[in-house]
C-alpha cells in the first residue's frame, strides 16, 4: 500500500516537473526540470522492481544528458551571439 501511495506521489511530481520543463521560459530551469524528471522516474523504476533500468536512467538520464544539454546550450548561445 505504501508503495502505491509513493508511486502515485512520484508520478504526480514527475508530471509537474515535465510541465515545468515544457513551459518554463528560462532554458536552464527547463533542463534542470528535465533532469529531475529522469531522477524521479529512476526511483519509480526501482519501486516497480526494475533496478537495472533505474541505474541506467539515473546515470544517463539525469547525469550525462543534463550535462550534455548544458554544454550544447552554451555552444548555441556563443555561436548565435
Amino acid at each position, binding site marked *: 500500500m505504501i508503495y502505491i501511495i509513493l508511486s502515485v506521489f512520484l508520478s504526480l511530481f514527475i508530471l509537474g516537473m515535465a510541465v515545468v520543463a515544457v513551459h518554463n521560459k528560462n532554458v536552464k530551469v527547463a533542463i534542470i526540470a528535465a533532469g529531475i524528471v529522469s531522477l524521479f522516474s529512476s526511483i519509480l523504476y526501482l519501486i516497480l522492481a526494475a*533496478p*537495472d533500468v533505474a*541505474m*541506467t536512467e539515473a*546515470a*544517463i538520464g539525469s*547525469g*550525462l544528458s543534463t*550535462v*550534455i544539454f548544458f*554544454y*550544447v546550450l*552554451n*555552444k548555441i548561445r*556563443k555561436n548565435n551571439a
Partner: protein
Amino acid sequence: MLKKGIILAIVIAFAAIFFNLFSSFNGNTELSDLSSYYAINEPAQVGAANLVTAIVVTYRGLDTLGEVVILFLSAAIVSFLLKLHYNEQNDEERKNGLRPSSEVLQTATRILVPIIFMFGAYVFINGHLTPGGGFQGGAIIASGFVLLLLAKPEMKINHQLINIIESISGISFVLVGILGILLADGFLDNNLFGLGTFGTLISAGAIPIIYIFIGLKVGSELSSIVGTFNETQKEN
C-alpha cells in the same frame, strides 16, 4: 481560447482512451510461457544469478552487440562533427578564459572520483550476480568522468588512450562471440569453458568477460562524448 479548448478536448480524449486501458488491467498471477521458460531453464543453460543479464548477454546477445554499435556510431559522429571547428590555438584561448572551480568541488572530486570509478567497475564485474551490468557500469564511470571535468575543465583528455581501450574492448567482445561458435553452440554463447558454480563471481561462463568489455567500451565512449563537448566549449 479556442486553442485551449482544443487542448482540453485532446487531454480528455487521451484520458478516456487510457482509462479504458487502466480499468481493464489486471496483473498476471503467474509467469507467462516465455518468462517461465527463461526462469526455469536459465540456471542450467546460462548459470547467471541475475536473469536479466542472462537474457541481455546470452539469449539476446546480438541485440546487445547492436546497441554497442549504435553507441559507438553516435560517439564517433559527435567527435567528428565537433572536431571540425577545433584547433590547438582555440584550446589555449579557452584555457585562459576559464573560471577556476570552487575549492569544495575540487576537494570532493579528489575523494569521490576513485570511489565512483571503483563502483562502476564493481557494477560491471558483478553484472551476472547483482542488478546492473556493462551499460550501467560504463554510465557510472562516465558520470565520474563528468565530475572530474566539472572540477578541472582545463584537463587534457588523452583521446589516444580512450580510443585504444574502446577499440580493443569492442574487438574482444566480437572475438568472444566468435569463440562461442567454435567452442560452444553458437555466436555469443557463454558456455566456453564450463559454467562454474551458480551464484559465485567466477560463474556464468563468458558473461563476466563480455560485461567487462562492454563496460569499458561504454564508459570510454560516453566519456569521450562528454570530453569532446568540454573541449569545444568557448568561454567568451
